Structures are given as C-alpha cells and as structure tokens.
C-alpha cells in the first residue's frame, strides 16, 4: 500500500524527515510514535500527497504522489492534525461538499452521510453548525469526513490529542471498529497507550529519523523489560541513591524526578531496594510500555522530548 525509501523532507536548511524507510501492508494498522517535532505530520502529509518530498522514493497505492496526486488522494482518507471543517456550514453539508470533491454523486452521498453520522455518533448534530460542536465532536466529524470516499488507506494525524479522556475513549472505540473492519490505518501519536491499543506495528520516530520498528509487544520485549519500578527519593537525592542500587534489576534510568529500575519481577526488585534500608517517598511497580522504549532509545521521555 505504502513504500518509502530514504524519504526526506527539508524545509530550507532544516531537515524535518531524514531519509526514513518503511512500508505498510494492506489491512495493517501502522503507527508512527514520536514526540512533538519528530516529523510525524511532515511524513503524513507526504504520504497524503499534500506535501512534496525533497528526495527519496515514495509509492502510495502503486503510484508516485508527485505525479499522480489527485488519483492517490482520491483513495485516501485524511484526518489532519488540526480540524479544518468549514465552521460556517452544517455537519451534513461538510460531509456532502467534501464528498463532491471526490466526484461522488448525490445518490451515493445521501445514504453515505447517514451512515457516517451514525458511525461518528453525530446524528443529532446533522444540521448543527460546526461552530457549535465540542472538540471531540469536531474530531469525529473530521474522521467521518475522511471516510466519505471509502478510502483504501485512512490516515490519522494525532487523532486524540487535546481531547478529554472520555472523548478519547469514544474515538478509540470508533477507530477500533475501523480496524476490525479491515481498513488500512496509518496513525501518528505521541501517546503510547494509543499506539499500544490501535497499532499492529509501529515505528518510533525522533528528530526526523526512525529509531525502532516492530509490534508494540516486540518493541517492549526488545528495548525494555517486563516490568519497571519507579521510585522517588526527592529531587536532590535521586542521583546519589541511584549509584547505591545500580546493581539491582536489569537496567536503570535516572530522571530528574524519579529513578526507573527495569526488571522481570517488579515487586521483588522493589523489595530488594527497601531491604537496603532505603525508603522511597513514593514507589510504583508497573508493566513496561512504549514510553520506556522511547526513553531507552532517546534518553528522553515522550512528553519532555
């Protein structure tokens, strides 16, 4: 569906995407995980044939986006990072007008719009102006809009960023249904839980490069341990204490506010720390996540990066 070879985008001197390689197979749910500024949106826009690449090869649905832009975009569903629905038109009008830009006839669009409104749980809002919708509703409208042409690939750029937890869960549920229906999804996110829930396979991006690739579980296996213990001793003491427990666990990361100790058995590891007479102010044992993978690969957390 998508193949990229040394795909590069430079904005003047600045290289936003630095020679990345990846491919996406039909029916796959492919994630791009990375902090702000990693180059996720830039990559998405190149795939979406709305941004010309600087160099490298890119093939979408067997075509080159710098040659066959309209033919490619005709079969993509694009959900940009910023909602850009027409705020002066109603919800249904937005879907209708957008559908027209794919050459879709009214006879197809009329029932399709009903179906999309049901999917996005916006039936009551059919004739409401977009202005009056909540953030979560606007996002669902943008997603519904991206599905109006029954796209071969659905591209979602940070679908849930900025939404409250409830709105996020509604969206995840909708996206999960798309995935179950066999759609090919490309999703960018800087939330590791989102990547874990929605992606079969993902690449971790940082500063324009791909730093790791695999399924969420295999990335965790490869770059982290099964569990991790987070202990806090107060900001002044973390460094000094870290030195004294450096032999405990498989590996350790010292952050300004906490120490992370990676191990297969989290509880036992915590016991070992306490057994040395050290009393952390707070402690937490949890399963390793993609956050830990990112930390391992870059030395930074996703939020701080």
């Amino acid at each position, binding site marked *: 569906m998508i193949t990229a070879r040394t795909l590069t985008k430079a904005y003047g001197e600045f290289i936003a995407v630095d020679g990345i390689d990846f491919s996406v197979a039909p029916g796959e749910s492919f994630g791009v995980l990375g902090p702000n500024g990693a180059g996720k949106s830039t990559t998405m826009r190149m795939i979406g044939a*709305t941004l010309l690449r600087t160099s490298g090869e890119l093939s979408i649905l067997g075509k080159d986006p710098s040659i066959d832009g309209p033919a490619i975009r005709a079969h993509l569903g694009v959900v940009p990072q910023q909602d850009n629905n027409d*705020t002066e*038109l109603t919800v249904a009008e937005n879907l209708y007008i957008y559908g*027209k830009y794919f050459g879709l006839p009214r006879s197809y669009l009329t029932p399709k719009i009903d179906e*999309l409104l049901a999917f996005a749980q916006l039936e009551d809002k059919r004739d409401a102006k977009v202005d009056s919708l909540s953030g979560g509703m606007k996002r669902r409208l943008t997603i519904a809009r991206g599905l109006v*042409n029954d796209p071969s690939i659905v591209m979602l750029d940070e679908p849930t960023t900025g939404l409250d937890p409830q709105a996020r869960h509604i969206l995840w549920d909708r996206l999960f249904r798309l995935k179950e*229906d066999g*759609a090919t999804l490309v999703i960018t996110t800087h939330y590791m839980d989102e990547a874990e829930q929605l992606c079969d396979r993902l690449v971790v991006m940082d500063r324009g490069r791909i730093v790791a690739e695999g399924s969420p579980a295999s990335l965790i296996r490869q770059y982290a341990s099964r569990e991790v213990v987070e202990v806090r001793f107060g900001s002044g003491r973390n460094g000094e204490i870290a030195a004294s427990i450096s032999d405990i666990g498989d590996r350790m990361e010292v952050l300004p506010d906490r120490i992370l100790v990676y191990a297969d058995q989290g509880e036992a590891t915590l016991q070992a720390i306490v057994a040395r007479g050290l009393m952390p102010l707070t402690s937490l044992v949890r399963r390793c996540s993609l956050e830990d993978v990112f930390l391992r690969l870059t030395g930074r957390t996703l939020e701080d990066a």
Partner: protein
Amino acid sequence: MSIGTQPTGRLHVDVRRVGRIGALYVAEYRLRNMWKWKRAVITDGLGNPVLYLASIGLGVGSLVNASLGPQGLGGVPYLLFLAPALMAAAAMQGAMTEAMFPTLAGFLWDKGFFAMRSTALTGGQIADGVLIAAVCRVTFTTAVYWLVLRAFGAVEWASALTLIPVAVFAGACWGALMLAITAHAKNDDAIISIAMRLVIMPMFLFSGTFYPLSTLPISVQWIGWISPLWHATELGRWLSYGMPLPSWQVAVSFCYLVLMGSVGLLVARRRFEQRLTA
C-alpha cells in the same frame, strides 16, 4: 453496515470527472457559502447603486454639467455617462471582495483550502473555483445595478446587453489579479488595507469615473491609463452609447484587461498549488 472497507464508495470515486469539472464543485461550495449571507448580498447589491445614484449621480451631475457645459460629456446625459463607470467599479469591487476574503480564509483563517486539497482536487482548480464563484456573484450584482439604473431612467433596455457583460468582464479580470496577489499574502491586515487605501480609492477617483479623464491635470492622468477601471469604463461608454473611441484604443483597453486577467489567473493557479503542497 461497514465503514471504509466495502469497495462500493471506491467505485463511485471519479478522478477523471473531478479532473474535468472540479473547479465547478469548488464554485458550488463558495456559492452555498455566499447563500448563507444572502440578505447582505441583496442589501449590498441594491443599496450601493441607489446610494450612488441618489447622491453622486444627481448631485455631482449638476456640478459637472454646470462646469463643463452640456457638450462637456459629448452631449450625453450625466447618468448615461456615469452608468458604465459605476457598474464596472461595482463589479470590480465585488470581484475583489469575493476573491480576497475566501482566499485569506482558505490559506490563513480556517485553512479550508488545505482540506480541499486533500481530495482529488488540485490547487489550480481551487483558484479557478473561487474565481468562478466571484464572477457569479458579480453577475448578480451588476444585473441588480443595471436594474436600478433602468429604474432611474438612466439607461435604455438595450444597454443591458453591453453594460452587464463589460462590467462582469472587468470584474473577472480584476478578480483574477486580486486572487493572485492575495494568494501570496502572509498575513491579512496589510493586504486588506493596502488594497483599499492605495488601490481602490485612487482608482475610483482618477479613472474618469465622474468626469472625463482628460479634464484631470495631466500629472494624475497616468493613474487612469494604468487603471483597469478606466479601460473598462471606456469600453462600456463606447459600447453602450457610442462614445467615439479610436479602434486602436478599443483594442488596447480590451487586451489590457485580458492580459491582466490571464496573467492573474495563471499566477494564482501556480501559487495556490505551491502553497498547498509546501
């Protein structure tokens, strides 16, 4: 029910159709949007000519007649002399508004052009569509203008066939140029105030709108020569009441406007596509 996986919608997607008439879809969208402002469009369409005719047409008219004498305008009534200029000015003003504001909105305010460009449309088609819609709006405005002129008894029935097309033509050419300029705008304030203060007002005053250009001091006459409004007005006067105009001047005025329109549209198309893929 299945979303996004059944090939039914895919079969309906028609890239070639969009390639052919995509600009009309954009125009349809723009017209729908204007329709939301129908009251303002109609009030504006009617209010403008009534106001101008009542104040300038009758007031300035008596002054011009008094100072130039009855032969000063080539022996035609002042309103007949004024009509082509007012209609062309209204058309150009309308075309400018409908080219400038949607373009600023599309690139800067709600970024709607970026949404359009993620479909099968191209940037060039978006530019075309905005201009087509602007010309539709201008056709309506000029037709209303003409009706008001007719109601004032300023023009004959037959003049509809000349005055309206000339005004719409001038509006289209000017609109294309404004589209090209606005497509380059990085922010909104500057371009709006420059357009209004430095271009529209001088053009309106020094284009032989209210009195023949030749009666102005030679030092400001050049503004008229480069003003598309003057060229449109000359063509309108020549066509509607047979104001004498050498054929070379007819050709120059016509070509001047065509050139402005076609260069404007070509630049606009290129700039739209560039800006939506960068």
